[in-house]
């Protein structure tokens, strides 16, 4: 659809006339973005920047400081300070004119095209973009629920949870046990749990070298497995015990009160228990009625919801095909979506989407690895075209260069989201 005054008055008038709708700049098409993370902040920024004032962009995000999950493992490993991974929304408001609303979206009325905020406000939209990240599946790990997350942190939404986990690792008794309950597929950041294990081992090797690490994993294999296994054997011999599906790694329960983990009937006392439950799309996607099962199916060409062409779903919450749930993917999807949304609302040129992803992981100081791929939109899904992965046995120089590159990527994507 090309935006013009007639379509605005025709379809938008009723919404604008409703008394409680908070529409400033009436007359311009309105985009509301829910979630200011890798997908949402990028989409809001690109739409605002490229439309040069022709589109009203509102970004709804409850937190004033976004602590990125990406590089949060490096914080656990002591390579970053917590402030290094915290980012604010000031430039999006000041440099790009985005209306940044620090609140929760609690309801979406797709028929009336409005979003309701926890604070009571209601925002009308012409296009809605959802990028709420993940929530956890209820009852996914027996004995664990959100009330137990202080004793057994997930640290899979970064910030206070990550700080808590780091403090718990530092407080482990000599020779103590760190346990992780790894999540089933699909989940955010496929190499994330294993990079975390590497960073925890890095810290313990220096501070508590007789400590043990146990991973209970419901999967038979995991992302970059050969690279991690090689790295663990080289850097942390004998420290890490990975218990995969074959040995009952998926049959677990926890007792947060007693601090025990039971794997396939064997109960173990643990000092830290990092429970990463099964995941689903952020709850607001379900409330908006765009999910099917745990995730929100989208069209590969523009990330529009299969349930509603005026709603787009980005990043971890979306079910798009072959791309992993990563910040890189969310950022890539956001640009294709921003281009399509801007085209629909202002008539600007719409180009075919370009999707790509690379995920770097740090195994030990200066030992970086990466995996990446390009993707294209097909009728059915976002489909992988081509890819590469670091190889076991690479030189220390190459691994160091890969690590330095990941630092560059982090600075780059943060500038692309918040700059």
């Amino acid at each position: 659809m090309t935006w013009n005054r007639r379509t605005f008055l025709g379809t938008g008038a009723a919404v604008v006339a409703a008394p409680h709708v908070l529409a400033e700049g009436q007359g311009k098409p309105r985009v509301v973005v829910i979630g200011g993370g890798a997908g949402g902040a990028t989409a809001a920024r690109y739409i605002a920047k490229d439309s040069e004032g022709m589109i009203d962009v509102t970004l709804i995000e409850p937190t004033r400081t976004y602590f990125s999950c990406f590089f949060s493992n490096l914080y656990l490993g002591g390579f970053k300070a917590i402030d290094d991974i915290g980012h604010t929304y000031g430039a999006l408001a000041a440099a790009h004119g985005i209306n940044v609303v620090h609140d929760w979206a609690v309801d979406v009325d797709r028929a009336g095209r409005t979003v309701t905020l926890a604070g009571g406000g209601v925002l009308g939209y012409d296009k809605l973009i959802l990028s709420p990240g993940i929530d956890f599946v209820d009852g996914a790990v027996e004995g664990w629920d959100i009330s137990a997350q202080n004793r057994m942190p997930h640290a899979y939404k970064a910030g206070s949870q990550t700080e808590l986990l780091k403090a718990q690792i530092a407080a482990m008794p000599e020779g103590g046990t760190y346990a992780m309950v790894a999540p089933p597929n699909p989940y955010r950041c496929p190499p994330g749990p294993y990079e975390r294990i590497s960073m925890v081992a890095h810290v313990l090797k220096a501070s508590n070298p007789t400590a043990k690490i146990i991973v209970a994993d419901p999967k038979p294999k995991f992302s970059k497995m050969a690279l991690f296994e090689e790295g663990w054997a080289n850097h942390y011999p004998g420290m890490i015990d990975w218990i995969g599906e074959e040995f009952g790694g998926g049959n677990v329960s926890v007792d947060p009160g007693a601090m025990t983990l039971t794997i396939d009937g064997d109960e173990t006392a643990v000092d830290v228990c990092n429970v990463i439950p099964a995941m689903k799309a952020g709850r607001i996607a379900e409330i908006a009625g765009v999910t099917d099962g745990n995730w929100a199916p989208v069209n590969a060409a523009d990330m529009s919801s299969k349930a509603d062409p005026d709603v787009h779903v980005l990043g971890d919450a979306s079910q798009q095909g072959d791309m992993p749930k990563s910040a890189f993917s969310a950022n890539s999807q956001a640009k294709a979506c921003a281009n399509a949304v801007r085209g629909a609302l202002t008539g600007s040129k719409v180009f075919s989407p370009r999707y790509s992803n690379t995920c770097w992981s740090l195994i030990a100081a200066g030992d970086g690895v990466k995996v990446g791929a390009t993707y294209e939109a097909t009728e059915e899904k976002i489909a992988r075209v081509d890819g590469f992965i670091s190889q076991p046995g690479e030189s220390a120089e190459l691994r160091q260069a890969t690590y330095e590159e990941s630092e560059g990527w982090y600075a780059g994507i943060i500038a692309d989201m918040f700059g």
Partner: protein
Amino acid sequence: MRRAGFALTALATALAGSPVTGNEAPSLDPAILAIEGDAEWGAYLAGECLTCHRADGLAEGIPRITGWEPDDFVTAMHAYKQNWRTHPIMQMVAGRLSDEEIAALAAYFKDLE
């Protein structure tokens, strides 16, 4: 500035370190350098670059790609496309860019900063 194909060797070596040995000597049809890039298209395509490379030209760990002479930019991208420059991400990214897309990117990045 017009470059013939042989310039690629010098540039590939100068800018990327070791080219893959055993590859055929790279060649770049002068017609490729003559393609007029569409900067608007380049602006869209640049989104893929800007997840890592910075629009403000700062470079830490990842090279600067703003403000390049278009011929140098095009030559470097074709050096990746032909696997003369060895970086796996760049080979993958450049590998699927058409000659016109590379020209469009060059036209866009030349005026940034």
